């Protein structure tokens, strides 16, 4: 007597033995017929897979791609709708609190300017530069740094190529503050709505 143990259950197994390969095996025939019916040798992608499952997968992916476009498009539409702006970007109001300058920041103002608070920026990315010596910009830095700043029309007028930005360096210690100086080589305004637009997108409903 064979017994199968699986998941805490113990069941007796009734074994069927065939005398030789000439014996009729209906169960095996059924399995083979089903397997043959569930494949298609003319579709290379299905090779080794279950045909109905392949079809279901393809249909699901098609629906996903269709819905994805609607979701993406709706996102762009909402980001650009003036009527929904206050709703979409309510999080940003957290930053608009009062500005309390500490004594340290007051001291820093002797050396640096943020154009009366207009230049509110973060170092966002440090990239390795393709050329160690850039003849176009006359520098020999193997790095390029991307800085992202809060938008302001006034700031756009104040910025210029060649300006120096100071970024607090991690080499600062208890006796001195160290700043890495970055030379601005180019700057540009960017609109989040336009950045998200793709050729395949469309508006889910007409906008104003």
């Amino acid at each position: 007597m064979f017994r199968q143990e699986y998941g805490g259950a113990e069941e007796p197994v009734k074994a069927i033995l065939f005398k030789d390969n000439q014996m009729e095996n209906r169960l095996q025939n059924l399995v083979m017929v089903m397997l043959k019916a569930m494949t298609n040798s003319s579709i290379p992608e299905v090779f080794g897979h279950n045909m109905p499952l392949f079809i279901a997968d393809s249909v699901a992916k098609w629906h996903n791609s269709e819905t994805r476009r609607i979701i993406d498009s709706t996102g762009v539409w909402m980001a650009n709708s003036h009527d929904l702006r206050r709703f979409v970007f309510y999080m940003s109001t957290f930053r608009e609190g009062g500005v309390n300058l500490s004594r340290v920041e007051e001291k820093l103002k002797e050396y640096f300017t943020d154009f009366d608070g207009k230049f509110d920026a973060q170092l966002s990315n440090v990239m390795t530069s393709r050329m160690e010596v850039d003849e176009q910009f006359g520098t020999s830095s193997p790095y390029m740094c991307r800085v992202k700043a809060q938008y302001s029309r006034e700031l756009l007028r104040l910025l210029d190529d060649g300006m120096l930005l100071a970024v607090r360096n991690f080499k600062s210690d208890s006796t001195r503050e160290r700043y890495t100086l970055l030379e601005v080589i180019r700057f540009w305004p960017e609109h989040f709505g336009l950045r998200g637009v793709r050729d395949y997108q469309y508006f889910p409903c007409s906008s104003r």
Partner: protein
Amino acid sequence: MQFEVIQQSVDDWETDDKTTMMIQLDTLPINYDLVLEAIKAVR
């Protein structure tokens, strides 16, 4: 669709709306750091 978004964004450029726009800067670090020794004394 792209044209519509561009049309809608025209008004934004005239505002100071920080939620829809950003300024990006490419910068190169120069070879000399600025070291301030007086700053820490204030803390």
